[in-house]
């Protein structure tokens, strides 16, 4: 049930833009299976009266007032980027896969 197939790993690798070799796919499929099994064991010990949760602290409705405040200095922000142009972040050409 908790096994992960090599194809699934290949699919995830593609989504994560990771170029994995065949040997690496086998390797990670095995490792990921161990992780999935470990997580599944937590599910086994959780009783029916414990609802699944996405947050460690049971708290709701944490809101902020809608007040605008100054952000970061642009020069500082852009200085941290690998490449910039015209006060914008410069990124490599996108979407090679869309042209396939």
């Amino acid at each position, binding site marked *: 049930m908790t096994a992960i197939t090599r194809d699934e790993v290949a699919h995830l690798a593609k989504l994560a833009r990771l170029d994995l070799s065949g040997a690496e796919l086998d390797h990670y499929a095995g490792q990921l299976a161990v992780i999935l099994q470990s997580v599944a064991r937590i599910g086994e010990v959780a009783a029916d009266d414990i609802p699944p949760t*996405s947050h460690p602290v049971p708290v709701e409705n944490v809101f902020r007032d809608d007040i605008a*405040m100054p*952000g970061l200095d642009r020069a500082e*922000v852009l200085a941290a980027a690998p490449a910039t142009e015209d*006060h*914008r972040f410069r990124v490599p050409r996108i*979407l090679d896969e869309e*042209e396939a």
Partner: protein
Amino acid sequence: MSNAQLTVPFDEAMTRYEPIIGLEVHVELGTNSKMFCSCATAFGAPPNTQVCPVCLGLPGSMPVLNKVAVESTIRIGLALNCEIATWCRFARKNYFYPDMPKDYQVSQYDEPLCTNGWLDVTVATDDGPQVVRVEIERVHMEEDTGKLTHAGGATGRIHGADYSLVDYNRAGIPLIEIVTKTVIGTGPLAPAVARAYVAELRDVMRALGVSDVRMEEGSLRCDVNLSLNEPGAGWGTRSETKNVNSLRSVERAVHSEIERQAGVLDGGGRVIQETRHFHEDTGRSTSGRSKEQAEDYRYFPEPDLVPIAPTRSWVEELRAELPEVPSVKRARLQSTWGINEFELATLVNAGAVELVESSIAAGVDPAAARKWWTGELLRVANERGVELADLPVTATQIARVESLIADGSLNDKLARQVFEGVLAGEGDVDVVIAQRGLAVVSDDGALLAAIDEALAAQPDVVEKIKSGKIQAAGAIVGAVMKTTKGQADAAKVRALLLDRLGVSE
């Protein structure tokens, strides 16, 4: 895409296929600050001047939800007759695209804040106005993405670009997605229903004051899902057309996609599930990417944000404060302005309700205000391919022109020329009148000379008028208007010439 050119004319397509549409509308909320951080949201600010560690996705930064954004979403849900969730969460939508620096967008997935609503829209048909109920699947919150500019290459589009430039000012601005259920059974009305729905939605947002809903600035954007099927057959494969950024384009996108898909199906082909991009200039769409499957986004509950559990008392408080909804307001306007449902539907679909309202507030007679906005000005807007509200004409200018018509300084024809000048950027009403020399010829001497000339030129008409066929006077009036280049008051010309011939009405 060899079948891209094969299209079937709309009317013919409708004889063989039934369209099913679904609309996804994104509305940028008009909050002061972003969804999860305190950055400002001003449109048009210099690039990357409204950013902080949260919306730049810097490590260790933590989002906190904007209360007004939640309130606005609940109010939208209530105005659209939705149920408001008692408990819901945000989710991460994972994807690699530089418009979001985090490599995910915070959105709502299987737990939207509002569900199961509806919105009634009115479309004009040959048999009069028809009300269509568009059912709402969900209204959920998410954050807007950054703005990409594709550089290099010839087209400025993604394809052929050498690199892209990113401005994150827009990243994190509260965005509300409103998704309809599939709208079936509209047949050839599908394009009009789609347009009327977006127009109605825009009016609702405006009435609520939650967004400035400017389609040209991207604060209201529409994606059109559409499939065709033969009557009685199962549903066809749908395409999703993005980039539909004006009311007119919504209508055109549905229209052209029906023609395109009918062409594919007629040619024995298969419609592929894909994203298409609409182009304002051609009114057609081009193929984008084939649609990623939903699970590819690997949604999971956002661990950095806590659940939202709106109390019922809060929801009821917001419900009690809802403004008059546009449909109720229109019923009121209909009776105040003394117009029928069809005339009102024309105003709504032209996006003219507020314009007429403000013109009346500026002192224009209701009938005259409607006449200008749905007549001459709408014609110009259509010709230019822009929204009525975007024309450079103000309510005050209409009021000025109307007062000049009332005191006899202008006639209808000259008034149209005044607007032509105003629209061409020649200046304000009085400047255009002065520069173009537009004024009714009120000098009786000049008019009588023109009348005498016309009478002399058409003795047969004169005889007809004298023998009692007064309607024949139109020919003389026409000739005088021509001589005076339209700068005469037609009613006055008519009165003068009848007087000249000694005929009374």
